[in-house]
């Protein structure tokens, strides 16, 4: 790529002016160059896609690759940060379907799709409800103000993943603690590396044990059984799949719970309507997913051929960041995107991505969000923020947007 106008290339990620809105720069760039060059933290130049139709088009294009180990794959770390967090990355970049393309990706995804069918997810509802109820019990019993993030946002998805993977009950507390340390701001890099090693060893042992013994009736157990009949994955890839399910399903859902609760509390009229009629909740959740689109730059790709799109040509081997948040605030598709309108019908958002990599766990996430919001509105009608929403510690520095702590009075 020609870099004659280096100084003109804006840096990515861009700063937000308001914690609930995308960077204002997106709007400006979208109008000028909907596919813009940006400089990533490691100095590499990549393409940022800001329009909804172009985002969908690129994510569905067979000429892009999801190979996260490609040297030009856009990442949000500087070279220094990358070196310092190498051990954590060794865990989070273990090979799984999110790295794969074409037929190989298809085979890896298809051996799992049955686990996430709507029927299978519906069957998990009673267990999710129990987990949510217990988490809310703990929040109610905690000294006030209690941290919603600790008691509910983090706990619920972590326990749901334990349920899916078949983590034995006595080991769930350890699992939850390590998973939390991977993204905690208050632990040192050394502690974080130790937690990621512990998690890696733990999942390695979990899979090995399930491979040795009688097949267990959980996702990993069934995956192992199917894989024996029709081999698709190596042992390492099964462990990588367990890691991927944790990475993809934990912080994403956790942050949506925190942001969604704040959105409900800040919109008391809507909150009252939903509390009176929970059938309004699913469309409201689609709007929250659109509005926050928390997985901002994970849908990154590499062009495997030259691609002409949005007035530019992305050259082979160049990196692409498809911002779901920018796409979901495209005012040609969502009128007044800054309005949180629970009734707008926002289902065509790309918060879960698009194309063959679209989130496999999306319908589990929907169920978790629905049960958490419905149960909180029903059981804790007096729930309120203990600090003004604009003073909450938002995750400006994280790959997945959210809030570190949400003190609430129950």
């Amino acid at each position, binding site marked *: 790529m020609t870099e004659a106008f280096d100084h003109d290339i804006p840096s990515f990620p861009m700063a937000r002016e308001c914690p609930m809105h995308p960077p204002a720069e997106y709007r400006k760039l979208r109008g000028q160059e909907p596919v813009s060059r940006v400089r990533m933290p490691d100095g590499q130049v990549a393409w940022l896609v800001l329009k909804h139709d172009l985002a969908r088009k690129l*994510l*569905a294009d067979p000429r892009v690759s999801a190979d996260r180990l490609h040297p030009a794959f856009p990442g949000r770390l500087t070279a220094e940060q990358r070196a310092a967090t190498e051990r954590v990355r060794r865990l989070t970049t273990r090979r799984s379907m999110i790295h794969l393309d074409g037929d190989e990706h*298809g085979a890896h*995804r*298809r051996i799992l*799709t*049955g*686990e*996430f*069918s*709507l*029927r*299978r997810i519906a069957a998990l509802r009673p267990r999710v409800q129990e987990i949510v109820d217990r988490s809310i019990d703990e929040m109610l019993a905690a000294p006030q103000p209690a941290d919603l993030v600790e008691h509910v946002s983090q706990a619920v998805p972590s326990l749901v993943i334990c349920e899916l993977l078949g983590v034995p009950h006595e080991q769930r507390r350890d699992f939850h603690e390590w998973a939390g340390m991977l993204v905690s701001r208050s632990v040192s890099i050394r502690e974080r590396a130790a937690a990621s090693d512990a998690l890696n060893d733990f999942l390695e042992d979990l899979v090995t044990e399930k491979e040795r013994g009688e097949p267990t009736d959980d996702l990993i157990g069934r995956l192992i059984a199917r894989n024996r009949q029709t081999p698709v994955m190596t042992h390492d890839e099964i462990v990588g799949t367990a890691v991927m399910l944790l990475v993809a399903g934990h912080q994403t859902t956790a942050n949506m719970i925190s942001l969604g609760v704040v959105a409900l509390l800040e919109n008391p009229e809507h909150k009252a309507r939903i509390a009176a009629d929970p059938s309004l909740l699913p469309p409201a959740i689609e709007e929250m997913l659109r509005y926050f689109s928390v997985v901002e730059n994970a849908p990154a790709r590499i062009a495997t051929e030259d691609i002409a799109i949005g007035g530019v040509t992305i050259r082979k081997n160049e990196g692409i960041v498809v911002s779901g948040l920018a796409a979901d605030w495209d005012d040609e598709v969502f009128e007044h995107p800054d309005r949180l309108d629970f009734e707008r019908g926002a*289902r*065509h958002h790309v918060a*879960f*991505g*698009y*194309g*063959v990599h*679209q*989130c*496999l766990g*999306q*319908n589990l996430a929907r169920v978790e969000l629905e049960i958490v919001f419905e149960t909180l509105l029903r059981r804790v009608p007096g729930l309120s923020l203990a600090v003004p929403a604009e003073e909450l510690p938002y995750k400006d520095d994280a790959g997945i947007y959210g809030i570190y702590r949400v003190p609430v009075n129950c």
Partner: protein
Amino acid sequence: MHITADRGRCVGAAQCVLVAPAVFDQDEEGLVAPVTVDPAGADRPAVRQAVHLCPSSAIRIDEE
């Protein structure tokens, strides 16, 4: 209206079942299994929405 659902392209996101449950279902493997390939008039707008939402272009309307 006549539709074709391509199981080979399906990635199991279930968008079609969510918006048009009278027309689409999933099989044991979580892949698209149409309940009917000739949707009734009342279901047609939902089928069009399903086609738009499908992330892997696995559903096609052959005849309006």
